[in-house]
């Protein structure tokens, strides 16, 4: 009996009127976990019921604790007919299972109904007591911390980065079950929400198990997605990077170091449980155990061993309920071999046949198309490999070898991280990506998701081989995605080929640490080519690095990672997007899949050409955070590539763009061309000024280099594909030319030029990027505005050409950006960071574009030269000086001055209104409780508000603040449906309120955990469907992020924070009870 879950229902407020006659509600609450249900008493005739229930106790397996959400249903009691449901709250209790996260969940949660939206709020208290579990072969993985953040979380230190973890679970989609025909939409939506919540929990638990297996204690860069495959089922899959993290003993104050969680195990049974939990597996940190080391030394190469079939699982009779034990494919099975259970060997024989067999089973496997764009980009060069290796000296070579072996032991040396601890990332090769088109069929047995596993396996293998071709042994900034239309599914994976240091991957890491400091690269090392110069996988032009002049660099560098902090950048960066729309004939089944497969290479090629052109137009030479999304619809394919362009000082300056016509005899035509050329040249000059790109002119010095004509290295760059050679031939023909030439007889080129010139520059005062930080801007203020914007565009019935379609799509994105700039004009000077576009084709003639980003103000009068040194000072100054009207700095700083910890105050606020709320219900005549009204009377500063301000940002940090605690992962899935679309303000009104509701629910959950911000927030899915004729619409949204507590840096210096975490929370919530 490893855990006891306790829940208490305190009160409700703002409930809807359920009884028309009395205009009141007789509410009661059902609290359900697993198969156990408790009920509160009915609180008659009130819209602000005070149940103040007893503690409902659930005694459950920790496995269930991880899988199941706590389900709270608020109902209206009806004597004569069935009780009406008001709404539900699902509470993920996972954050309570980790010793370092939250200890109690307490606060007001919006009561959510999938048909009516938010209907009032409910105040709930939840606690968990975990007992000791010595069973090493358990199915739970409590205590493994999860982070959406794709870097090492701010208050942790990476002891070791173990590598890639992945898992997927499948199920039938309740929406497509036969029962859906007879049940209400509400029941169907709730079944779906609950199922996805369960599957997410299961997935997380299984990933956790893999992490424990690898000896880690955390997953960083955790990315969970679901694929709605319609008839064929529901897939929830996740990838992440297993790490061993060490909590930084907060350097700023010894007070916080006395973490009640860790120091006093006796206080809390849960902590005690953790301390001793699974002795073989280091949990919190510490040196890896011998067992694990052993695991690493002997590598078992076959993947199939790492999977065990469900039947064998049952034989093991660990927990009949779980489908399968999932060992990480990247960690060998040695552990299970050496385990005391003898059946393991027997298991081997029953393991399903190796991968290729299951592949052949899946009849619908399609020809897969894949690219190594890396290669392309590389088309413009890189290099070092052999020569670099020689020059690097023996020590470096040795280290590299070490790393190599460490990485080769992993099946997939992939990392979902996008930024790295210093010294970890050595060299970057380029982007690697792979796509494959599959036909979906029904998942017959949800317990055996081998087909989907095999698909991803295939793609990952391809990525790995691409990386190898680039001379790299690892892939960083790795991510996976899908696009589904009817029964066709495009699977995509991309990342950046790289060479990593062994520092965080070997047990001896700590010893080499100091040696590495010497080697620690200046801001150019990561640009040096990792592959062999003489044996390049593609034609490329290399030059000597413009920083150190010792190693070779490519002329252009594309990556999926964030700009390394140490990188030398000239000027500022900017968001660069390539957009493409291609018509496709409607088709069914295989024919459709073939058509898509055939279109894909061209789409990718065009996108890259566009990216390259736009990069040159901005006079930049590198892309970071590249994300290419291909979305498939019935009659079109959409491609959207977003990245942040920068000028890397180490790389050569890009050449211009030259336009050439094919019929030079025509004078007017020539004029047209020269006009265009002039326009382009003007734009380039303007951009140079705008982005402050004034590179030191090093051309003369480079003359001595063996690479000729460094200024003309730019060529039209073409995708290189292993499968399609004709494309690379094209590439070569263009490669002969000196400058970047666009021939405008070519319709494509006309289009290119068109899209080049129609990209409106950002209005003055605005910058944008899709990475975490904007190079060239350092002094952020605290003004912060996260937003989501969605647009759906309907194409009318006219038959559009590719060009027409392209223009429509391009305009849609441009207009959306323009609207954003206009909306946020009061924040100027400001930068839109982490701009994340997602496109979809929800129906035949609809294009949907969704953007989530954060706008951050910065201080105009920044001194760029010493910017980096004075970041902190500037930030603090900015906080005190800049008060944007849209934001809350005034209030926050007022709050903070009275209380060193915002969070502590927030907590007391949350629980504060409880007693007073009771007063109000006793005295019905006055709807406002006494205490509150007094405060209102005396000062109108709304001190009585019980709502904690929760900041949200897609970034991993909040400028000017320090994250002092990670409270756990937020991963929420909601469905909203309406049958009265017009009444709710049409599609826009419907979606507007739904998104606002999702934000509200995220904020409420974070506040209940005791947090005051969500970092690494991401809206992973926004599926919108409408049927205006039936007055109906439905929308699904999936969001994730990390709940945190932050404090302002200015406060940290002024007052040492108190040990707030557990004690403060419990005491404040105690008052409320």
């Amino acid at each position, binding site marked *: 009996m490893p855990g006891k879950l306790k829940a208490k229902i305190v009160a409700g*407020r*703002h409930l809807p009127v359920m009884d028309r006659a009395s205009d009141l509600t007789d509410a009661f609450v059902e609290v359900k976990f697993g198969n156990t249900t408790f009920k509160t008493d009915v609180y008659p005739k009130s819209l602000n019921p005070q149940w103040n229930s007893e503690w409902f106790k659930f005694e459950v397996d920790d496995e269930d604790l991880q899988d199941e959400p706590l389900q709270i249903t608020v109902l209206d009691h009806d004597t004569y007919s069935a009780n009406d449901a008001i709404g539900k709250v699902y509470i993920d209790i996972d954050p309570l299972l980790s010793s370092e996260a939250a200890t109690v969940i307490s606060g*007001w949660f*919006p009561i959510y109904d999938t048909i009516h939206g*938010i209907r009032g709020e409910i105040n709930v208290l939840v606690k968990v007591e975990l007992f000791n579990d010595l069973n090493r072969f358990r199915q739970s993985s409590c205590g493994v911390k999860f982070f959406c953040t794709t870097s090492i979380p701010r208050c942790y230190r990476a002891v070791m980065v173990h590598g890639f973890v992945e898992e997927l679970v499948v199920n039938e989609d309740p929406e497509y079950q036969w029962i859906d025909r007879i049940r209400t939409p509400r029941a169907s939506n709730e079944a779906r929400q609950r199922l996805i919540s369960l599957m997410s929990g299961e997935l997380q638990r299984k990933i956790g198990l893999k992490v424990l297996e690898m000896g880690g204690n955390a997953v960083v860069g955790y990315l969970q997605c679901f694929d709605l495959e319609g008839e064929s089922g529901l897939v929830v899959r996740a990838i992440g990077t297993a790490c061993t993290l060490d909590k930084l003993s907060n350097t700023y104050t010894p007070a916080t170091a006395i973490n009640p969680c860790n120091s006093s195990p006796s206080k809390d049974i849960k902590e005690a449980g953790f301390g001793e939990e699974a002795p073989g597996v280091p949990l919190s940190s510490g040196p890896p155990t011998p067992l694990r080391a052993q695991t690493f030394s002997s590598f078992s190469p076959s993947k199939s061993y790492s999977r065990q079939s469900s039947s064998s699982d049952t034989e093991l009779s660990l927990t009949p309920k779980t489908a399968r034990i999932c060992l990480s494919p990247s960690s060998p099975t040695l552990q299970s071999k050496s385990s005391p259970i003898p059946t393991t060997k027997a298991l081997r024989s029953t393991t399903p046949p190796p991968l290729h067999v299951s592949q052949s089973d899946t009849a619908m496997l399609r020809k897969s198309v894949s690219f190594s764009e890396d290669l392309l980009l590389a088309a413009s060069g890189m290099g070092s490999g052999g020569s670099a290796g020689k020059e690097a000296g023996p020590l470096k070579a040795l280290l590299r070898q070490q790393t190599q072996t460490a990485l080769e032991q992993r099946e997939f040396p992939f990392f979902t991280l996008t930024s790295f601890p210093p010294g970890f990332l050595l060299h970057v090769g380029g982007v690697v990506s792979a796509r494959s088109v599959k036909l979906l069929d029904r998942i017959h047995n949800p317990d055996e998701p081998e087909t989907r596993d095999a698909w991803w396996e295939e793609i990952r293998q391809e990525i790995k081989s691409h990386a190898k071709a680039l001379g790299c042994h690892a892939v960083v900034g790795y991510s996976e995605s899908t696009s589904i239309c009817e029964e066709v599914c495009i699977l995509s994976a991309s990342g950046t080929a790289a060479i990593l240091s062994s520092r965080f991957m070997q047990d001896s890491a700590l010893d080499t640490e100091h040696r590495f400091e010497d080697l620690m690269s200046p801001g150019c090392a990561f640009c040096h080519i990792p592959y062999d110069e003489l044996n390049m996988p593609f034609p490329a032009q290399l030059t000597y690095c413009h920083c150190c002049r010792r190693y070779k660099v490519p002329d252009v560098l594309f990556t999926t990672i964030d700009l390394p902090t140490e990188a030398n950048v000239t000027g500022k960066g900017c968001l660069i997007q390539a957009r493409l729309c291609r018509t496709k004939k409607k088709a069914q089944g295989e024919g459709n899949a073939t058509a898509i497969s055939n279109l894909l290479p061209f789409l990718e090629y065009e996108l890259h050409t566009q990216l390259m052109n736009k990069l040159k137009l901005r006079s930049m030479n590198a892309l970071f955070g590249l994300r290419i999304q291909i979305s498939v619809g019935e009659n079109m394919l959409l491609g959207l590539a977003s990245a942040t362009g920068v000028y890397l000082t180490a790389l050569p300056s890009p050449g211009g763009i030259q336009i050439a016509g094919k019929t030079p005899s025509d004078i007017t035509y020539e004029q047209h061309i020269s006009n265009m050329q002039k326009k382009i040249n003007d734009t380039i000059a303007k951009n140079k000024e705008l982005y402050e790109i004034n590179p030191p002119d090093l051309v003369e010095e480079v003359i001595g280099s063996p690479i000729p004509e460094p200024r003309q290295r730019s060529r039209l760059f073409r995708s290189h594909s292993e499968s399609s050679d004709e494309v690379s031939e094209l590439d070569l023909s263009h490669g002969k030319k000196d400058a970047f030439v666009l021939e405008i007889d070519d319709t494509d080129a006309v289009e290119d030029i068109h899209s080049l010139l129609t990209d409106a520059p950002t*209005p003055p005062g605005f910058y944008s990027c899709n990475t975490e930080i904007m190079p060239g801007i350092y002094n952020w203020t605290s003004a912060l*505005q*996260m*937003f*989501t*914007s*969605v*647009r*759906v*565009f*309907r194409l*009318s019935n*006219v038959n559009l050409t590719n060009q027409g379609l392209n223009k*429509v799509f391009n305009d*849609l994105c441009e*207009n959306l950006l*323009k*609207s*954003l*700039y*206009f*909306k946020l004009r009061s924040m100027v000077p400001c930068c839109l960071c982490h701009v994340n576009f997602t496109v979809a084709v929800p129906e035949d003639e609809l294009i*949907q574009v969704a953007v989530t980003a954060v706008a951050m103000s910065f201080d105009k009068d920044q001194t760029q030269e010493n910017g980096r040194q004075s970041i902190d000072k500037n930030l603090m100054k900015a906080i005190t000086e800049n008060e944007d009207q*849209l934001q*809350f700095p005034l*209030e926050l700083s007022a709050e903070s001055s009275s209380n060193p910890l915002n969070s502590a105050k927030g907590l007391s606020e949350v629980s504060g*209104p409880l007693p007073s709320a009771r007063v109000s219900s006793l005295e019905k*005549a006055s*709807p*406002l409780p006494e205490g509150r*009204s007094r405060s*209102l*009377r005396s000062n*109108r*500063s*709304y001190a*009585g*508000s019980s*709502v904690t301000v*929760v*900041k949200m940002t897609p970034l991993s940090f909040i400028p000017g603040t320090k994250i002092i605690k990670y409270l756990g992962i937020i991963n929420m899935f909601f469905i909203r449906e309406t049958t009265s679309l017009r009444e709710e*303000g049409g*599609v*826009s*009104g419907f979606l*507007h*309120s739904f*998104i*606002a509701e999702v*934000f*509200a*629910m995220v*904020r*409420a959950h974070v506040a209940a955990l005791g947090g005051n911000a969500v970092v690494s927030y991401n809206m992973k899915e926004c599926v*919108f469907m409408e049927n205006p004729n039936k007055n109906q619409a439905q929308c699904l949204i999936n969001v994730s992020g990390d709940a945190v507590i932050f404090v302002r840096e200015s406060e940290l210096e002024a007052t040492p924070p108190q040990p707030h975490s557990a004690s403060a929370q419990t005491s404040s919530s105690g008052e409320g009870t």
Partner: protein
Amino acid sequence: MSVELDVFVGNTTIMDKEVYQLWLNGYTVNDAVKVRIEGGVMEECEASAEVLLSDTMDQFRTFQMCERLLQNPAKLANQLLFQIPPDRQAMLIERYYAFDDDVVREVLGKKLSKGTKKDLDDVSAKTGITLKSCRRQFDNFKRVFKVVEELKGPLVENIKQHFLLPDQLARDYAAIVFFANNRFETGKKKLQYLTFQDFAFCAGQLINNWTVGAVDNMVEDMDVDLDKEFLQDLKDLKILITDKDLLDQHKSLVCVALRGKTKVFNEMEANFKNLSRGLVNIAAKLTNTKDVRDFFIDLVEKFIEPCKSDKWTATDVNLYLTHYTNSAHILDTFKHQNVWTRYMGVIKSCILRMYHE
């Protein structure tokens, strides 16, 4: 080809004050866009009309979604749906409850019923304020009225508490509620020259002096109704005009005091009995609800108009009323000093406010 769906949702709800005002004024989205274009926001921000339309629609929708909360401002601070900074909340509420004096003047003292609401198109036509805005204002009056009608305690404080309004606005609403509750006639032609602020001032006087709460200042009392006991006591003042000696005595005291101090002395002396009768009769009749309604018209007919026709200045009126009030205290046989003070204090300030030169 059209944008079918277009939404923008910020974690902190973005609201433009200018657009909010346009929404409150009852503009349609298209009209609001026109106004904004004329305001020059496009040049400022390099925006196109399309962008402006999208932004306006989006904000109008946000306001519409907020309206439910604005109708119960106390909820706004506690709701979770919109994260709005406190200063913004205050601004939203204050502007939502702000009203046009012209509009309120039209409905002042009328029953806040459906019938009155139906007549709002006339009000809209007359004032040039959109019907939508008139309706919002009317609904605000009605909502505030409904909430505080049955509440105990000081009226202004109750309004401040429940609607989180700033002091001045709360006082104005108190006046509106007070007028609506007592159904004071304000629409007659003779009263047309009076502004809402004139009436609001008078209402403040009445609330502060003539209601039960005014004397006791206890929480149990209601501020919306006049003090019945006091109104009953007012009947006793009749002695001032029915007792001939008292009337003469009163007159001579006032005349002595005013002689040489005013240019209209003769007119005053000639009119004293009429004026005094007028004021005392108003007092004596206030027990009848009907006469309460005619309170202001009576003041105008019985006092202000006669004075006006004799070309009294405001100073004259002030002087007269001061001595008229004070002299009564010197009358030996007049026993109702307290009632007299309470009555005349209000009458004097009301008349002075209503006496436009």
